[in-house]
């Protein structure tokens, strides 16, 4: 059976005179790596300063290189060792060292905010203890980390946030203007085309009117001619009739008078029946809530209003019976409207 090779940190840990010290060293180096605006030399010096009393007995170089490579397994191993070996006092001192390494003037990098809190959880240090420790060491209270996943963070921390925004807005406006200009031009072209079309239509209409007038004149002439002919024929017929009448007048006078009377009676009855609208129309109008004599537009408006009022979907939330009733009413209204639209 072959075993995997030991990682650099494992070898370091095995060689170390004090495993806790080596592990703490790696954790502190990890914090230092995430500190911003610090050179590599400064980092090493700071680490050496803070860990002057450690008894690990090896170089700091390899630890720093492991921390730089962000080796998660090494950091996990270090965290386990620290958790296993550190008592209460020692864990407080580790937190103390981590805070010292992370900040000089209370300004923590965002990553270190989370790393410090991770250490506090690892060594079971309560938030209040961490806060007081931080305040004692730096003079400023431990604020909650800012959130770069929000727009407001960049408003504060990006110096040319507003300049960039203005630039973007200007670009967008320019685009908008271009689009507007293009649209205007299109509109103008469209209008021109429309105008031309209208002119053409007008010409066509004038032509049509002229043709119609000509046709009408021709028709009038023909009518005049016809009328003259008819008048002549009428005169002839009248003459003939007058002669016939004179011969028949005496024997048929009584008959004719009775016939005329009958005809007059018929005519008057017809006139009386036509003006009142059929019964069905009145009923349909009353279903729509209208008086007889309503116009087509009124009928349409009334239908729309009634259809909205009595639509079955309005009663969907109520009982099924309500829906059934509403649909019956709706059907009746619709039938009335259809009938009115056909007859009106």
């Amino acid at each position, binding site marked *: 059976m072959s*075993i995997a090779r030991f990682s650099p940190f494992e070898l370091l840990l095995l060689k170390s005179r004090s495993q806790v010290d080596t592990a703490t060293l790696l954790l502190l180096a990890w914090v230092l790596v995430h500190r911003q605006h610090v050179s590599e030399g400064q980092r090493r010096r700071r680490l050496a300063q803070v860990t002057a009393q450690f008894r690990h007995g090896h170089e700091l170089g390899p630890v720093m290189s492991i921390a730089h490579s962000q080796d*998660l397994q090494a*950091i996990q191993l270090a965290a386990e060792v620290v958790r296993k070996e550190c008592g209460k006092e020692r864990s407080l001192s580790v937190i103390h060292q981590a805070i010292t390494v992370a900040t000089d003037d209370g300004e923590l990098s965002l990553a270190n905010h989370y790393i410090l809190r*991770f250490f506090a959880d690892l060594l079971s240090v309560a938030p209040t203890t961490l806060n007081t420790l931080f305040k004692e060491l730096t003079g400023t209270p431990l604020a909650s980390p800012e959130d*770069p996943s929000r727009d407001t963070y960049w408003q504060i921390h990006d110096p040319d946030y507003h300049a960039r925004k203005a630039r973007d807005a200007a670009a967008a406006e320019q685009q908008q203007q271009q689009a507007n200009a293009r649209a205007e031009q299109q509109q103008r072209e469209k209008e021109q085309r429309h105008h031309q079309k209208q002119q053409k239509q007008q010409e066509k209409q004038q032509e049509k009117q002229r043709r119609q007038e000509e046709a009408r004149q021709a028709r009038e002439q023909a009518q005049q001619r016809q009328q003259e002919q008819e008048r002549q024929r009428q005169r002839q017929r009248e003459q003939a009739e007058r002669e016939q009448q004179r011969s028949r007048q005496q024997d048929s006078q009584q008959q004719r008078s009775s016939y005329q009377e009958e005809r007059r009676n018929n005519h008057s009855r017809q006139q009386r029946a036509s003006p009142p609208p059929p019964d069905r129309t009145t009923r349909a109008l009353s279903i729509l809530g209208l008086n007889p004599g309503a116009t087509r537009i009124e009928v349409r408006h009334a239908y729309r209003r009634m259809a909205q009022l009595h639509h079955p979907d309005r009663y969907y939330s109520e009982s099924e019976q309500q829906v059934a009733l509403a649909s019956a009413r709706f059907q009746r209204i619709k039938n009335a409207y259809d009938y009115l639209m056909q007859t009106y």
Partner: protein
Amino acid sequence: MRDLYQRLAIPPEANEQAIQHAVASCQHSALRQDAEAIFSVAERREAYDTLHDTVSDIGKLRARLGLSHGAHWQGDVANDFSLPPDHAISRHDELVDRVSHAVSLYNRWRRLRGPWLLIAVFATGAGIGIGLGLALCWGLLPV
């Protein structure tokens, strides 16, 4: 600190185009505004990505060490970066196992060094003898 990648349902290594598409199709208007502010500018995305990597590393560490419900791990960060607890064997135990295995191998080697050396000497001697014999045979046969 929220995990915008997770909230937009894209992998952190997604390219510009995929991100733009995801941002444009996001239904949550506030989230869309934030995502636009961060992903439209390269430097901001870079800064966000570095922090994102660190915080997801911490999330992994917490999951492996059983610290995903700590007093200092709450709010958006805990919501977005917590992983399900990891039941992998602890690194320290693994190290101890490997060291003990290596020690046992070393001990066995120390114990068996004498006999193995003898066997090795005999084997090399036999090999050399056979080789010489074969060479002699090949030299004599054609004559």
